[in-house]
């Protein structure tokens, strides 16, 4: 058998997916990055190792994606390192080739991808602030003392959502507090927050994009049924949340690894599941070569330097060869 592993390292979550030659998902892992991407990757690999029998599988290729894709690629020895937009699109098209629009809302950024005839024709990402992203909800959930997982259920109970103004967390928060003080019900406030997020997403990330059905909604926030309902209400069309919506990026990375290996016929550079037991170390220093004072980061496996980056001028850079 031949299996392919995809790893998506984002700022909020780290996701892994293992697929077989037919592109079927054998196992998925979803966990929090918590600011320690290497630890998260190791934890995810360990969890995967426990749940599958290593003897029956052979990882033929590995792909990484997400904002931590280069680091992840270096750590695991990836065959392909791809941006999350391409990865998400590949995964979605694999599940349903007819999809025309992908809404992807993650922790700190959100995207829209427009597809036509199975190729990406346009895309957008949130620009400056956290408008229309998961962290917007996270913070309000924290304020309301409601676990984010239950947000959706609260929202669905509301028949009269409150209007909450505000693009940024800060603005929305002050408006929300004001509405709380006016005595609105929690469920209506939560539904209002969902609508605010959708409105912000459509006005910021999706501005000027041609949204056509079928629409897939994926990313961590897609678990929140309140948001899906708000999208449907606003757009008047059905919005589908695919089964593996949380790990679509990882699935895409795995598919891309499969494509890469099949096209080139080369051997994988995967360091193997043994890397879980190896000691990884990162250290950084501030270069004082010029007024930019770049933070240079070095990655070691068991005291062997494997990569170095972070400098603008490139005099320190030493990147993992497959990166790019």
């Amino acid at each position, binding site marked *: 058998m031949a299996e392919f592993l995809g790893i998506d390292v984002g700022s909020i979550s780290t996701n892994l997916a293992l697929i077989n030659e037919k592109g079927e998902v054998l196992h998925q892992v979803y966990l929090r990055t918590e600011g320690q991407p290497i630890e998260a990757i190791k934890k995810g690999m360990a969890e995967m190792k426990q749940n599958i029998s290593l003897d029956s599988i052979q990882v033929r290729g590995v792909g990484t994606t997400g904002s931590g894709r280069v680091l992840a690629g270096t750590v695991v020895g990836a065959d392909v390192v791809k941006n999350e937009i391409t990865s998400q699109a590949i995964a979605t098209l694999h599940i349903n080739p007819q999809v025309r629009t992908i809404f992807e809302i993650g922790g700190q950024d959100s995207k829209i991808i427009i597809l036509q005839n199975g190729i990406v024709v346009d895309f957008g990402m949130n620009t400056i602030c956290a408008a229309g992203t998961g962290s917007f909800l996270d913070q309000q959930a924290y304020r309301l003392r409601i676990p984010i997982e239950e947000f959706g259920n609260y929202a669905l109970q509301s028949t009269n959502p409150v209007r909450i*103004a*505000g*693009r*940024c967390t800060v*603005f929305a928060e002050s*408006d929300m507090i*004001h509405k709380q003080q006016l005595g609105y019900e929690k469920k209506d406030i939560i539904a209002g927050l969902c609508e605010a997020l959708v409105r912000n997403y*459509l*006005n910021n990330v999706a*501005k000027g994009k041609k949204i056509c059905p079928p629409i897939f909604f994926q990313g961590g926030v897609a678990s929140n049924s309140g948001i899906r309902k708000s999208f449907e209400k606003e757009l008047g069309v059905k919005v589908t949340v695919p089964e593996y919506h949380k790990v679509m990026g990882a699935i895409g990375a795995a598919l891309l690894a499969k494509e890469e290996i099949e096209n080139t016929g080369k051997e994988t550079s995967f360091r193997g599941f043994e890397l879980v037991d190896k000691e990884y170390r990162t250290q950084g220093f501030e270069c004082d070569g010029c007024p930019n004072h770049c933070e240079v980061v070095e990655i070691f496996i068991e005291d062997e330097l494997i990569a170095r980056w972070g400098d603008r001028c490139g005099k320190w850079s030493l990147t993992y060869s497959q990166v790019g």
Partner: protein
Amino acid sequence: MKVTIPNLGNLASIAGKSLLSNLGHEVILPPSNTKRTLDLGVRYAPEYCCLPLKIVLGNFIEALEKGADTIIMVGGWGPCRFGYYAEIQRMILKSLGYKFEMIVLEVPRGNLIRILRYVNLLRNKQSLSSLINAGEIAWSKVVAIEELEKEALRIRPRENIKGETSRILKKGLSLIDNTNSIGEIERIKQQIIDDFNKIKVKKNKELIKVKLVGEFYVALEPFVNHNIEEKLGYLGVEVERGVSIKPWITSVFSLNFLKVGYQKEKNPIEKAANPYLPQSVGGEGQPTVGNVVLASEKGFDGAIQVVPFTCMPEIVAETVNKKVSEDLDFPVLTLIFDEQTGEEGLNTRLEAFIDLLKSKKYDRHLTARRLAS
């Protein structure tokens, strides 16, 4: 032809409507500005363009929904973005699939055929004398509205019963709206001013006088500025506007066409701005600075500058005003408005600023007052 125009305080809905209906057009005014207007504008306008463009775009969408087929908008030739609003709005509305004609009033440049067509459409086969008559009626309405509003700003902080001034003003505006004779407009204006003077006023009230400066549309459109003039009135502040539509009309309708370019004599506002900002920067940028300088000389306690988020001329003025305020020891509060502006934050800021002005004026520290009470 079913024409529409953007909302602008009481001016467009009363004087603008009067002009167009006297020319024989069917006028379809946009509904008053609401959250929906704003939402529509925000949804379809470029994200970082300024708030006036967004709201006016919302007006047009709502008017087209009501059946309007011709939009009248004002234009210009820079450097402020305002001159290009109409064109961007036209493009967006076309891309949304609306069918309409847009007539842009601006100093003609190029494309004479298009301009002549606009003039003919607007004139609507009316004789020159009825054209002049329609213009005169509209102009007297503008003059009357601005004068009544100005008077209301003076009376409101003194009124004994909250809301009395606004009630009388509203009555006057509706009377002006419903008449079509210049003599009648003048009579109504006098009568309302008399009514204002009959309002019972509080004695010995500590009044604060503030100059309201900044971008034209935000200063004049109550929905956008969250009714700042009324709010200030109720806080016991006498407000004087630094912007007026009158000079603006003369420039848009090219009434000073022959003098365009070189003004030999600088007006007093520009002269006052000169040490700090000798160059016109478009929009109301230079007048904003000039008005702040003048206000400090004329016994005002402070100035409030209203700015739409990302406004180019007003940001220049804001930067320069920091220095003006410091040099002249004259407090200036800059308020930036966008679709995010919340009522609560605005109230807090206004109240705090007025407290600051009071304690400065009456040489009283907030702590001292708290101890005394």
